[in-house]
């Protein structure tokens, strides 16, 4: 009898103790647009899926993608750039779920005009035609947004001087000094600039040109070798997205909103007021638009910034989340 008892006790113990959490890693920016993963972490959604997620923080979109390619992180979540598509086109990255989108009514990216240019008559996004434009880098999300604006307003971007200034602080000082006429800046930077009178805000990118700004992605190696992990990660990610939606988009539960804001403030190291004012729209089911991704790839290819060999269909994996299209 005794051995059976011991075996039963051992089995009971094994059931009571949760299996050791599987370690995985995510490269991410300290921005409010990364909110869902911060919420999934602090609300315990990753842990509930048996995942121990280590965050690797970066300061620009590019290194976030490179970290996933180099194997330093298994997942990445950030804005989509021409550099991202060039890496993905070589078969190094796959988009598996959506992140932030520019949507009407969401004040995420501001069209800004220097005071000098404003006085000279640049009063609306349509007036950006032929004006010098400050951005971080060639192929950045800012570059794409001015491209979308040019397309919508029907002006020729090749007649504007595009100033690649490498960083947002450089963009701020160029705009302040009037060395650049226009820029697109994140609201966390744009609103304080406007309040200090350093430059004028003349519109928001979400109102003019909605687009799929960010995505969750992984490497083909992780996708093939650890499919179960990817599935669990996305389940937890979706719960994070739902929490984000409940807290900031549905706004039903004030306590949930306050708690979520606390978590975002902790990770982004920003004032709660600034975060709340510049929250991006995120699809409540973490869906993304494959059509919009294809449009972005086509735009960069037409501009000569993405290789002709990049195939938008190869980049996206639509088996984890429903398609928006």
């Amino acid at each position, binding site marked *: 009898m005794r051995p059976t008892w011991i075996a039963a006790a051992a089995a009971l113990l094994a059931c009571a103790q949760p299996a050791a959490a599987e370690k995985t890693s995510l490269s991410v920016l300290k921005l409010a647009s990364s909110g869902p993963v911060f919420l999934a972490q602090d609300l315990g959604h990753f842990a509930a899926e048996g995942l121990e997620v280590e965050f690797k923080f970066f300061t620009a979109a590019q290194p976030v993608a490179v970290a996933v390619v180099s194997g330093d992180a298994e997942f990445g979540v950030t804005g989509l750039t021409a550099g*991202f598509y060039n890496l993905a086109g070589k078969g190094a990255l796959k988009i598996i779920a959506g992140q932030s989108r520019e949507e009407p009514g969401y004040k995420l990216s501001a069209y800004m005009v220097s005071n000098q240019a404003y006085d000279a008559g640049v009063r609306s996004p349509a007036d950006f035609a032929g004006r010098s434009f400050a951005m971080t*880098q*060639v192929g950045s999300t800012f570059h794409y947004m001015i491209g979308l604006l040019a397309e919508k307003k029907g002006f020729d971007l090749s007649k504007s001087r*595009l100033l*690649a200034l490498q960083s947002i602080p450089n963009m701020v000082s160029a705009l302040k*000094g009037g060395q*650049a006429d226009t820029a697109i800046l994140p609201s966390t930077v744009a609103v304080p600039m406007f309040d200090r009178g350093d430059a004028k805000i003349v519109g928001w990118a979400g109102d003019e040109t909605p687009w799929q700004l960010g995505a969750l992605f992984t490497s083909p190696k992780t996708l093939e070798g650890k499919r179960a992990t990817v599935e669990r990660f996305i389940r937890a990610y979706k719960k994070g997205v739902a929490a984000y939606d409940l807290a900031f988009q549905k706004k039903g539960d004030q306590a949930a909103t306050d708690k979520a804001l606390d978590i975002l403030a902790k990770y982004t190291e920003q004032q709660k007021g600034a975060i709340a004012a510049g929250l991006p729209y995120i699809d409540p089911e973490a869906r993304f638009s494959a059509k919009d991704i294809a449009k972005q790839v086509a735009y960069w290819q037409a501009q000569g910034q993405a290789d002709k060999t990049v195939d938008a269909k190869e980049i996206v994996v639509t088996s984890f989340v429903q398609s928006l299209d």
Partner: protein
Amino acid sequence: MAERLRFRGGGFVIQRKRHAGWIAGFVIIAAWQASSSLGWASPVFLPSPAGIAKALAGLALSGQLARDVSASLARILVGFSLGASAGLAFGLALGLVSHARAAGLPIVSALFPIPKIALLPLFILWFGIGEPSKWATIGLGVFFPMAIATYSGVDQVPRTLIRMAQSFDVPTAAIVCKVILPGALPGILAGIRISASIALILVVAAEMIAAEHGIGAFILSAGNLMRTEDLLAGVCVLSALGLTVGWAVSRAERRLLGWR
């Protein structure tokens, strides 16, 4: 009969081996191409030499290469001329005038190790985002090595030659022109060799900010776009420029220092 002594004094004499450099380069590139062709090196991490050559050909055919190289060379020319001539004058003053040396040498020592790239934001404030801030970045980077090379070149002119000229009552101006300057020329040319390479390094840094054309801007945007073939093609162009500058300085050395 004593045995003829073998000549044993030939060690470490550098002989000109014309082909070794070409063969070494060829072997490295062939091994690199082979590892890419065999699939050992992923194109994401290391593009193949053939891919880089294709990127270079594309750049040359589209006219972008000529536009970028001429934009960068114009910047280097202005920045280098300003920085090198100022460095030469300052170095001569350090070498010739005791007061200038006492006052100037600590200043040079204090300012030389500052990375000029760190001053880029300041240059943008002072000179704007146009060409002057790029000239300043290159010029300041070139100034210090040039000043130091000139100063030590002057310092190494044999004292006996100067004393001899003085004892023949040669006027000071003539001593400077006919004894000190030719004597310091090897040092000055070495300074030009180093500072020309520094100018090539700094043009990439200078073109980080708001440069529409230029080989540095091209390399940076290729990096931003993760187009590694283009990036390495740009690096090859920079290397070719460096080789050209080195060759030109060697020619100048052979011509100007023939009297040695």
